[in-house]
């Protein structure tokens, strides 16, 4: 069920109504039923996968919880008679046992994800590398359950947090099932932490007019971004990507700009709807964006874009890999062999490359996604190496580098660089992408763009709507930096409701629903 379908709006209205009418102790049960009903709309056959994840996570977490309680009880009983070293050894041995239990859960769940998502990609590459031709292995047509990347990552985060003692073990399997399947965030995140979300899901919520109003306003805002901006830009994107070799040079630059607008409006719009739905239910989800296009560097951009995915990879991949025993040994060895300066970079850089490789792979089973991840990594590592030069430059020209103009220059530079790398998403084929990037230098057709831009399926009015929409989004985003616009307007109800009415009418009148138009999937649904 698409967020942009009438069915979803009706479903949402029913859930809101029932949620605040049923006795409060039934609320979480109602949310669980709603989440599974929402999931069933994607097909009954997908249920088995989310059930396997839920039940395995339940069993694994309980087993780790039991082992940890046993360890603490033993230490409490024998603390006096145990030396410090003996305590350390005992703790280490017990931790190893718990790690084995955790590993079983991770292998099972990431294994299911890997088989369903990447088998086709592996088989395709094997056929291609070994030139099997007609004798090649058949590419299996496997089912990819809705939201599997998101709910698997969220649930595995829970297991790792239980192992680390950062969250409580859920003793009721139905409650854990709700944490895994909470419907607003099931298809495109944000990827929540159990310690942040779980208690909110199970706590009874009374109807709060302010929270509910804010939630509905945020949902409207999400629909505005998605239907008025993203889906309108999508029409031009489809033309540009239908036969990409026809649209070279300046059109590639245009595509980079349009895709940046589309993915921002689509993904942040979807997250606005998600967070808005949760807010209307009295549940606060973690924000996934923090004005990413105002970032001055790639590192900053990745702290502000898809935040929950970034922190997931940092906490559960980058740090553990960087500080694991083999890496520490490698660090010592490389310092001895390569010198302190180069040697100390080895573990950090290896872990960074691995993290970005996996981040690319998470986005999709394709070389374009892997190259996308590795290019981001390359830019981050080069920036890291250039930092002393930047620092010297900043020290030499303090007035220039602290000026408004220099800040904007840095933000535009980051926006363009990220846009360029992001276009690997669009062309899907790495060779084509590189060729078309090159055409921006070799094919000088900027003069054609003036007329050609209107042959992409959008007329002047459409472009004006996109431009105006982007302007409104930029103003709201800028105003929200200190305090959200909804809060600013809450004490001025007439203005607030007038603006909501205008927003609603804008979505109805200017949403991209022309003849033959089909409300599209959110881009991140496919990840």
């Amino acid at each position, binding site marked *: 069920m698409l967020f942009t379908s009438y069915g979803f709006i009706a479903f949402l209205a029913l859930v809101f109504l029932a949620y605040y009418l049923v006795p409060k102790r039934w609320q979480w049960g109602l949310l669980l039923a709603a989440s599974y009903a929402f999931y069933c709309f994607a097909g009954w056959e997908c249920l088995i996968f989310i059930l396997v994840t839920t039940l395995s996570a339940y069993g694994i977490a309980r087993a780790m919880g039991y082992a940890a309680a046993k360890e603490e009880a033993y230490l409490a009983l024998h603390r006096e008679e145990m030396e*410090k070293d003996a*305590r*350390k050894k005992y*703790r280490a041995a017990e931790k190893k046992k718990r790690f084995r239990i955790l590993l079983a859960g991770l292998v099972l769940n990431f294994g299911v994800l890997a088989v369903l998502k990447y088998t086709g990609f592996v088989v395709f590459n094997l056929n291609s590398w070994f030139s099997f031709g007609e004798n090649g292995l058949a590419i299996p047509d496997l089912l990819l359950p809705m939201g599997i990347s998101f709910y698997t990552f969220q649930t595995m985060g829970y297991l790792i947090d239980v192992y*680390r*003692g*950062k969250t409580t073990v859920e003793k009721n399997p139905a409650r854990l099932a709700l944490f895994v399947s909470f419907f607003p965030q099931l298809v495109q995140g944000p990827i929540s932490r159990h310690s942040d979300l779980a208690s909110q899901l199970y706590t009874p919520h009374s109807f709060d007019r302010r929270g509910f109003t804010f939630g509905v306003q945020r949902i409207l805002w999400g629909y505005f971004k998605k239907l008025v901006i993203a889906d309108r830009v999508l029409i031009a994107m489809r033309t540009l990507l239908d036969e990409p070799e026809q649209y070279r040079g300046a059109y590639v630059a245009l595509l980079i700009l349009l895709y940046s607008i589309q993915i921002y409006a689509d993904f942040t719009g979807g997250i606005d709807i998600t967070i808005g739905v949760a807010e209307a239910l009295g549940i606060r989800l973690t924000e996934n964006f923090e004005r990413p296009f105002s970032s001055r560097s790639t*590192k*900053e951009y990745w*702290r502000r874009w898809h935040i929950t995915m970034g922190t997931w990879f*940092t*906490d559960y991949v*980058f*740090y*553990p890999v*960087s*500080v*694991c025993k083999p890496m*520490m040994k490698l*660090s*010592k060895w490389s310092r001895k062999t390569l010198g302190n300066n180069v040697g*100390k*970079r080895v*573990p*950090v850089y290896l*872990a*960074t490359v691995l993290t970005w490789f996996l981040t690319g792979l998470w986005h999709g089973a394709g070389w374009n996604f892997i190259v996308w991840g590795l290019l981001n990594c390359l830019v981050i590592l080069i920036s*890291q190496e250039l930092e002393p030069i930047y*620092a010297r430059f900043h020290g030499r020209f303090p007035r220039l580098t602290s000026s408004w103009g220099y800040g904007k220059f840095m933000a535009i530079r980051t926006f363009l660089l990220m846009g360029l790398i992001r276009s690997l998403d669009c062309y899907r084929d790495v060779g084509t992408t590189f060729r078309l990037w090159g055409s921006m230098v070799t094919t000088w057709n900027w003069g054609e763009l003036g007329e050609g831009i209107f042959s992409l399926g959008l007329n002047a009015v459409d472009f004006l709507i996109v431009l105006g929409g982007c302007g409104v989004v930029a103003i709201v985003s800028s105003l929200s930096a200190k305090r959200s616009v909804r809060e600013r307007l809450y004490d001025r109800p007439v203005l607030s409701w007038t603006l909501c009415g205008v927003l609603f009418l804008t979505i109805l009148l200017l949403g991209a629903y022309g003849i033959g138009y089909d409300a599209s999937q959110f881009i991140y649904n496919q990840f």
Partner: protein
Amino acid sequence: MERLLAILSDLHPDVDFATAEDLVDDGILDSLDIVTLVTEINGEFDVTIPAEEIVPENFNSAAALMALIEKLDEE
């Protein structure tokens, strides 16, 4: 504490680590800095900082970091 401050200053000579209290929250230390720091501390203090202890609260100030090192040494 001096040894820790020396390691920190080596990483960012322009920061006054003795007084700074929001090193991670203010973006002074990023993930790459933190891993470099952990590697240095593991070597200098003979403790092992596990991944689960790499949270902003433990790295926001030199004092918090020192408290973590002492806790790990005690355990």
